[in-house]
């Protein structure tokens, strides 16, 4: 295991860079999750509409 040798500020920059990437991926997952919920709602509405139409 390589011990941390950089100055604290260097650590902060590295942490910030990696954090940006992971937060972006998490935000993307949240957006996809929201979109899936919207699609599920739309599908439910269309199923109801199709049922009403068929009596």
């Amino acid at each position: 295991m390589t011990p941390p040798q950089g100055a604290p500020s260097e650590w902060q920059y590295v942490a910030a860079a990696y954090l940006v990437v992971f937060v972006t991926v998490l935000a993307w997952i949240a957006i996809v999750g929201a979109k899936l919920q919207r699609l599920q709602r739309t599908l439910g509405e269309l199923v109801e509409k199709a049922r009403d139409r068929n009596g």
Partner: protein
Amino acid sequence: MRRVLVQDRVTGLAVLAVGLMALAVGLIFFYAPTDADQGFSQRIFYFHVPIALTSYACFGWGAWKALLVLRKSDPDADLESYTAIHQGVIFGALTLVTGSIWAKASWGVWWTWSEDQLVLFLVLFLFYCAYFMLRFSVEPGPPRENLSAVYALFGVVLIPVSFLAIRLSHEFIHPVVFTSHGPQMSGSQFLTFCVALAAMLALFATLYHVELAGKRVDARLRELRELLA
């Protein structure tokens, strides 16, 4: 059957992406040696460069699909091209942000206009941002598909220019890692870099397939809504 295969592929890709990402982070922080020249901040390289290369791959894939749109008038290829470019813009934004943080840590500035590679990457990024403005200013249909495809193909020309800019540049502040003599790094650093690159490509493949599946379902639901109206 096809849907099950696609779902299995997405699940497999997601597992691969998470596994490779965990391995890459482990190698970056516990295996790769600290760079003698740049110190600890050089570890940003292991995410920054693979993200940049992945954005090039996204734009390249988008251009390939755009070519299929023009050759075969395939609306599915148009959706694939659009999705790949969308992913490329996300990876491009990450390249600019991580690069900027690395620049601040290494050079003491967030951005420098004298570096050809940085400016060319920004131009490439803005070019593809404008793709969305063009795409959504035209009504859906073949004209939009063709216009978007031509634009995506124009953009791909900027990739080799951006990639080679470092070699054309007169100022060499930006580190040159891959030269004609091979990668200028130790074996352990190169292994870490390769794993990080594989992780980013797997992440792109996963996000691409998930986004594409979502867009296809959305389009089908829109069709269904019109049929039921």
